[in-house]
C-alpha cells in the first residue's frame, strides 16, 4: 500500500454540498452475530455502517469479510478512536490507516464522534465528553482540519454522544457548540437521536429546543436504538428496542431535515432478526414513505460511481 501523506491542503476551502450526498436509506450497524440473517434479508437493508477500527490492522479473515460486505452493500465507516477532542492532536498513524480504509471503500461519507478517547498516553476506552468551551472548539476544529488534510475527498460527519459528566464551566450550550463546529469545519452531522433523547432526560432539557438550534441542512445521518433505565437515569446500552419517545425525535428530525441515511445501532442483547427488520421497517416508514425506491436508486448510482 502507498504511503499516504496529507494532500490537497486547500480543499478545506471547498464547501461540501450535503444536499447532493446520496440518499442511502435505512440500515444497520454490521455485527457478526447476525451476518447470516443480513445476507438472507439483503433486500430490506439499504446500507451498513461498519466499525472502522475492526478493519484497521485487519487479519486476512476480516479483510475477506470487508470485501464480501463491500460487494453487497454500500458501507459507511464509523470511527471510534480518532479522539477529535484531544488537545494533544489526533494520532496520525491511526489516521493514516483510516485514510487507507476509506480510500479502499470509497464511501459516501464517514463518521466520528465529538469527544475525546485518549490523552497523555491513557486510552480511556470509550467516548468521553469535552467541555463546551471556546478552547475545546478550537481543538476540535484544528483536529478536524487535520483529518481533512488526510481524507480530503470524503465528507466527514460528526456524532453527538451521551455524557454523564457535565462541565459547569462550559461557555455555551451543546447545540450551539455543535452548530459552530460543523459549520466552521464544513462537516455534516450524525445525529444520534437516542443520545439526544437520553441527554435531554438525564440533564433536564427539551430535545425540541436543542433540535431547533442545530443546522438542519447539515444533518446527514441518524443513529437510533432503544435505551434502558438505571435508577433515575437513561442509559444508551444499544441493547433494546427503540421506544416511542425516540421514534418521536426521529420523526421530528426527518420532518425538518433531508436526512440521507439512518442506522439502527444494536450492539447487545440481540433479538430474533425479525425484530431488527421490524425496527428498520418502522424507520423507513418515517424516514420517507418511498424511501426504499430512493434508497435503491442512490445505491445503484453509488455502485456506478465506484465502477
Amino acid at each position, binding site marked *: 500500500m502507498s504511503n499516504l501523506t496529507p494532500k490537497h491542503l486547500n480543499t478545506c476551502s471547498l464547501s461540501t454540498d450535503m444536499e447532493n450526498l446520496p440518499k442511502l436509506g435505512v440500515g444497520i450497524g454490521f455485527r457478526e452475530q447476525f451476518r447470516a440473517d443480513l445476507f438472507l434479508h439483503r433486500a430490506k437493508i439499504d446500507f451498513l455502517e461498519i466499525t472502522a*477500527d475492526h478493519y484497521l*490492522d485487519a487479519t486476512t479473515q476480516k479483510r475477506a469479510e470487508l470485501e464480501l460486505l463491500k460487494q453487497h452493500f454500500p458501507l459507511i465507516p464509523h470511527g471510534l478512536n480518532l479522539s477529535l477532542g*484531544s488537545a494533544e492532536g489526533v494520532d496520525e498513524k491511526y489516521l493514516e490507516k483510516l485514510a487507507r480504509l476509506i480510500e479502499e471503500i470509497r464511501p459516501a461519507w464517514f463518521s466520528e464522534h465529538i469527544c475525546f478517547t*485518549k490523552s497523555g498516553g491513557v*486510552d*480511556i476506552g470509550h467516548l468521553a465528553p469535552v467541555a463546551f468551551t471556546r478552547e475545546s472548539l478550537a481543538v476540535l476544529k484544528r483536529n478536524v482540519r487535520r483529518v481533512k488534510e488526510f481524507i480530503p475527498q470524503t465528507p466527514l460527519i460528526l456524532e453527538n454522544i451521551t455524557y*454523564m*459528566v*457535565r462541565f459547569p464551566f462550559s461557555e455555551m450550550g451543546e447545540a450551539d457548540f455543535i452548530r459552530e463546529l460543523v459549520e466552521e469545519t464544513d462537516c455534516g452531522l450524525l445525529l444520534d437521536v437516542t443520545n439526544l433523547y437520553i441527554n435531554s432526560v438525564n440533564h433536564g432539557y427539551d430535545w425540541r429546543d436543542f433540535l431547533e438550534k442545530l443546522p438542519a441542512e447539515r444533518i446527514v445521518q441518524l443513529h437510533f436504538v432503544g435505551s434502558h433505565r438505571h435508577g433515575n437515569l437513561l442509559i444508551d446500552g444499544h441493547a433494546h428496542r427503540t421506544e416511542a419517545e425516540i421514534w418521536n425525535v426521529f420523526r421530528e428530525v426527518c420532518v425538518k431535515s433531508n436526512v440521507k441515511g439512518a442506522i439502527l445501532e444494536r450492539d447487545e442483547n440481540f433479538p430474533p432478526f425479525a425484530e431488527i427488520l421490524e425496527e428498520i421497517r418502522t424507520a423507513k416508514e418515517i424516514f420517507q414513505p418511498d424511501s426504499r425506491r430512493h434508497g435503491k436508486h442512490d445505491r445503484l448510482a453509488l455502485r456506478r460511481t465506484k465502477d
Partner: protein
Amino acid sequence: MQNLLARIFTDEDLRLRFLLEPEKTGAENNLSEAEIEQIKQLLPEQINFFADSLFYKRLHEVEKFLPLTRKLLGKDFEKYFREFANQFVPQTIKKHLEDALEFAAFLQSKKIEPIWAKDLARFEQARLSFNNSEKRFSLKRFDFDVRKIVREVSREGAKAQSEFPKRKTYAVWLRVGKRTKHFIY
C-alpha cells in the same frame, strides 16, 4: 486538564485521591489554579458513574472474549479483572482483544480455585490469539485434561476438582485456507 481527566476516569486510586483532595491532586498534576478551580466543579457522582461505566464496558467486552473462564469463575472474574484493570492499559487498536489476552496471562499469576481454571483461561487465550492472527499452526500444552474441562464448563458449569485430574494434554490449532480447526489430545 484532559490528561488528568483521562487518568481520573481510568485510575481508581487517583480518582479517590482527587475526590478527597482536588487541589492537591490538581497541583501534583501540573494544573494551573484556574484549571483546578474548573475541575473542582465536576460532580463526584458523575465522575464515578462514568468511571464505573468505563470499567464495566471493559469488563463486559473481555467476558465476551473469555466466556468459559467467566462462567467458571463467576463473580471472581470481575474481582480479578478489577485488579488487572488497575495495572494494565491496552495500547493497540484492538484494545478489548488485547485486554482479554493480557487478562488471561494475568490470571496465571493468581492463586485461583479450582486450579485448573488457569488452564481453561490459557486455552481460551490461545484460541483467541490464534483466531486473531495470521498463523497457520499453534500448539499449546496444558497440565489438565482441557478437552474435558471445556466440554463440562460449556455444558453446565464447573465440576469438582477431583473430576479433573492432572493429565498433560496438547491443543493444536490449524488454519487451512479460510478454515480453522483445533484438536485436543
